[in-house]
């Protein structure tokens, strides 16, 4: 009832989503999504992941030691809301918007799909799944594990 359409063919004909712009800082993230990899920037000085991607590490302000590493793609739902009115043509209400905590320790905003929206609960274990964008990039969504 709540899932997003994942038919790539439809993407060519109608705007599915507000397609995210690509910042210089975010480009490695988006490039990795073309290969179905969820990558995170890490500061190798602080040895911690940075989110959202930026030119500096917000812990040390360093910009020399940022390295992109693949993430596990597994996460835990931190908070969830179900949208009951249409906000975009791509998503038919009700659909779930969630903050998920990746096992690596960063928090992303996303949609949880593949399950009725009102079944998504705080604490649920989820894993990444991909929705194609019009330019070959993919948008990371999450779906329940098991």
């Amino acid at each position, binding site marked *: 009832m709540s899932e997003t359409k994942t038919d790539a063919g439809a993407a060519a004909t109608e705007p599915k989503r507000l397609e995210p*712009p690509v*910042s210089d800082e975010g480009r490695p993230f988006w490039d990795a999504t073309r290969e179905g990899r969820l990558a995170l920037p890490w500061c190798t000085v602080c040895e911690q992941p940075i989110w959202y991607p930026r030119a500096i590490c917000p812990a040390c302000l360093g910009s020399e030691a940022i390295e992109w590493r693949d993430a596990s793609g597994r996460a835990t739902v931190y908070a969830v*809301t*179900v949208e009951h009115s249409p*906000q975009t043509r791509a998503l038919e209400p009700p659909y779930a918007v969630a903050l998920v905590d990746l096992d690596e320790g960063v928090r992303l905003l996303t949609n949880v799909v593949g399950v009725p929206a009102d079944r998504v*609960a*705080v604490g649920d274990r989820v894993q990444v799944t991909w929705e194609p964008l019009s330019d070959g990039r993919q948008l990371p969504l999450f779906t329940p594990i098991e």
Partner: protein
Amino acid sequence: MTSLRGRTAIVGVADDVSPTGELDRTGRELEAAMVRAALDDAGLTLADVDGVCHAQSAVGLAEYLGVHPRYLESTSSGGSSFEIHAEHAAAAIAAGLADVVVSVYAATPRSDRRRGRPRFRGRPNFGGPDPMLEWELPYGMRMPMGPYALAASRHMAQYGTTSEQLAEIAVSTRRWAALNPRARYRDPITVDDVLASPLQSSPLHLLDCCLVTDGAGAFVMTSAERARDLAKPPVLVLGAGTAQDHSMISQMPDLTTTPGVVSGANAFRMAGVKPGDVDVLMGYDSFTITALLHLEDLGFCAKGEGGAFVEDGRTGPGGALPMNTNGGGLSYTHPGMYGMFLIVEAVRQLRGEAGPRQVDGAEIAVAHGSGMVLSVMSTLVLGTEGALS
């Protein structure tokens, strides 16, 4: 360290709202009318003004008014902008940078929609795409409601807070609005009414959400010394504090705890006041969850206990903690950056001008502004001359 306690006073206030939710005037014309009304209230004139605050452009406003200020303040933090203006104006006046400072706000989103004026979209950004556009907006989160819904979701999961408890806040606030002839909505509502209103961004129902109305307001501040010679009893700035911890909701460290913990503690410490001393709390109620978080973060109850605290009408008329006595953003007015109206109502309560909704003997009031998506909190502790002694 120099304290701002009792150094400055709000001496003039004005606001313009309508039960229809719409105003005839708009833009700078409406702002100018508010400035004039607030100066009249104070017994001052434009010639006295040497400081101008505006949440978009103090420079443009000053030119429009024909003022040549020596103090300019354009801090824009959304709904808490005007509490920050008051904090900064108090510091500027205490430091001798200005004598008479005015802050003004006007927005007419409701009538703009009818007039077909373009609405504000997105936010100004410098240097590359807005991170919110890249990392949040593709997921169809309703703005600004979605982030507050996420906070409510987390609070419920972590502390067992219920939709019924959130609804209590809307019910009590509506009871205050019933006492205010200028409020947008005055008919009583029940907890069941709130729960039966359509779900928006779950768990928030329609009646958990603030209004969209036209509205405008202004305040005038000067030194406590000068205030004693003016038209109305001075409302002293006893304490002030501001704190930010994020801009986007996905960067908020803990969705159950706002930076009001910091702004509130600093403002109370400066004022020498405890939450138990507060007679009137004006706590920004963009959504019921927002007001609940303020109660916890300002120390009126412990973290996680806000739900139980608001039961049995505790924040309504006749309750132990009068909160949002004008009817709040939930029932009085909400043009977008509601923080101005918190200050206006706090001042009216401390002057004894609040009519049927007057809290007897109010001596200390708090105006607690919340900006963006629980991002920037700013707390003002205001008091009568009696509260200073």
